């Protein structure tokens, strides 16, 4: 650890998607005098604006020069030609990790030797991987290489990283090796804690916490400043359709009950071209007021949409909590989620929201009609849901919990160093 006057600031190397708002929100919750944070990118992209102030770092002295609250971004220096050559060699030798569904293996992903270099140069006290299929697999490669020289490793499980992938034959052996290699495990869901224990976790499982950390509710409009959900007429649809999302299923559900939804504005986020074509067919055939909404340029605008919604619908074959669920609960929108999320750990089905089988479109359609027509249901759910997230998604509460987790991991680091000495 580093001497800074009488202060010893530990360094946390966060391996993850540097352009992710979730990663940025987590670091923003934690940054300050408690520890130094350095981000190791998993691919080439600009850091999320929310990560500012951040500075490039290439050495231990750069890290030690970071000011309070400044975040380091490890600068990648491996020449492109070398990266491409190494990638083809790894692919030919079968050394590449399986790619996440819908992603193509690519030389543009950061490679194991680059993380090994970062760990050797920066000497972090702990490595914290956020997300599994990119960051976790990368760190697993580093641990294979470094062995006992790998710092204590905390893995944050985002969404469905393990819940889905441990069931896919190509990924299962990697997930099993990874679960047994980590020193600490931080999930979003109790469901996943039980799962990784069954899969052979040897490290410590911490109490679950949302991947996004927490929210300062003093910045969220007071509940009585929001219009009651029964007075709102927007149905907001999370339109992801692909490796997990089932946006098309939601559109089919809306089509099945279209006559009951006249008078509602149906707005669909994150639309693919296929979704747009389906919505066009629905608008012509059903007379529904259904339209895509463009990607919200700021988080505030995304939240404003949720605050206008009576219902927020998001369905997939695998999920964690889903930040949209927590945001819907914060802003009074009635949530409809799938049984394949861990929404049941936050809401009571049929009372605070509705949870449906993602393969049962008819039940989803019935849930939408119920939420659209039952004013008492949505108005009663809103204050309960707000109280729940104010308690469990609060930034101060979760900052304290996360510091406790890091302190536990620093203890592991000290024990490792003493053993090595």
């Amino acid at each position: 650890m580093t001497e800074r006057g009488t202060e010893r600031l530990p360094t946390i190397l966060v391996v993850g998607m540097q352009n992710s708002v979730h990663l940025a929100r987590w670091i923003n919750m934690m940054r300050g005098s408690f520890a130094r944070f350095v981000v190791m990118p998993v691919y080439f992209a600009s850091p999320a604006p929310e990560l500012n102030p951040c500075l490039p770092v290439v050495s231990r002295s750069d890290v030690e020069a970071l000011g309070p609250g400044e975040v380091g971004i490890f600068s990648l220096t491996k020449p492109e030609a070398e990266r491409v050559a190494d990638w083809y060699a790894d692919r030919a030798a079968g050394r590449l990790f399986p790619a996440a569904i819908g992603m193509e293996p690519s030389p543009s992903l950061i490679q194991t030797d680059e993380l090994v270099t970062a760990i050797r140069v920066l000497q972090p006290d702990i490595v914290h991987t956020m997300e599994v299929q990119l960051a976790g697999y990368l760190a697993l490669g580093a641990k294979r290489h470094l062995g006992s020289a790998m710092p204590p490793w905390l893995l944050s499980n985002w969404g469905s990283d393990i819940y889905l992938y441990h069931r896919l034959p190509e990924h299962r052996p990697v997930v099993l090796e990874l679960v047994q290699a980590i020193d600490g495990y931080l999930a979003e869901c109790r469901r996943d804690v039980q799962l990784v224990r069954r899969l052979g976790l040897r490290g410590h499982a911490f109490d679950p916490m949302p991947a996004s950390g927490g929210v300062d509710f003093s910045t969220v409009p007071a509940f009585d400043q929001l219009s009651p959900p029964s007075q709102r007429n927007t149905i907001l649809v999370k339109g992801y359709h692909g490796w997990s999302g089932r946006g098309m299923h939601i559109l089919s559900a809306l089509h099945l009950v279209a006559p009951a939804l006249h008078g509602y504005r149906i707005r669909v986020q994150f639309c693919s071209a296929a979704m747009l074509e389906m919505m066009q067919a629905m608008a012509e055939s059903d007379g529904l007021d259904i339209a895509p909404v463009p990607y919200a340029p700021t988080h505030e605008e995304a939240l404003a949409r949720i605050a206008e919604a009576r219902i927020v619908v998001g369905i997939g074959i695998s999920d964690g909590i889903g930040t949209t669920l927590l945001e819907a609960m914060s802003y009074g929108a009635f949530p409809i989620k799938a049984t394949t999320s861990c929404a049941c750990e936050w809401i009571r089905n049929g009372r605070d929201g509705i949870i449906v089988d993602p393969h049962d479109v008819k039940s989803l359609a019935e849930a939408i009609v119920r939420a659209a027509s039952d004013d008492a249901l949505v108005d009663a759910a809103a204050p309960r849901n707000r109280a729940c997230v104010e308690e469990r998604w609060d930034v101060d509460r979760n900052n304290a919990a996360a510091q406790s987790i890091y302190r536990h991991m620093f203890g592991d680091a000290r024990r490792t160093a003493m053993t090595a000495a």
Partner: protein
Amino acid sequence: MSRKRRVIIDGLEDKQGRSLLVISALYHCRSELSDAEIRFVDVSSGEVRGAVDLLRWETGLDVRIPADPSEYGGGSIFEDASLYAAIRLNSLDGLHVAEAKFFKVPLLLALQFLPRSATSEQLVLLQPAHDPALFAQYLIERMR
């Protein structure tokens, strides 16, 4: 030993294809299909591959995407098949209808929205094209 019944599913997922909806239907008839081999054709997306892997893991069904046609002796996968099923947006273009008919394979081809000249079969299947549980009922009936 009796040979397993073979169900062939259209694996296209794009502006027209609704393979993920058919996969949802298979969850609704898993017990009825426990003695069938389910094979996906025309799969081009990783999303469908992942969903097929997950379906096999969760249901134990004999379901997969054939690597190449040679496993059918170099012949057609449609030969001796019990059903060819698909859900599409509004067109049957690109489906292997002629090949399936040649081998006298029963068809279950549903459209979500009707073309200008719709058949009575397409009218009947309009709702199942959006409702996987209902599509599953038709799938089982057509295999009998």
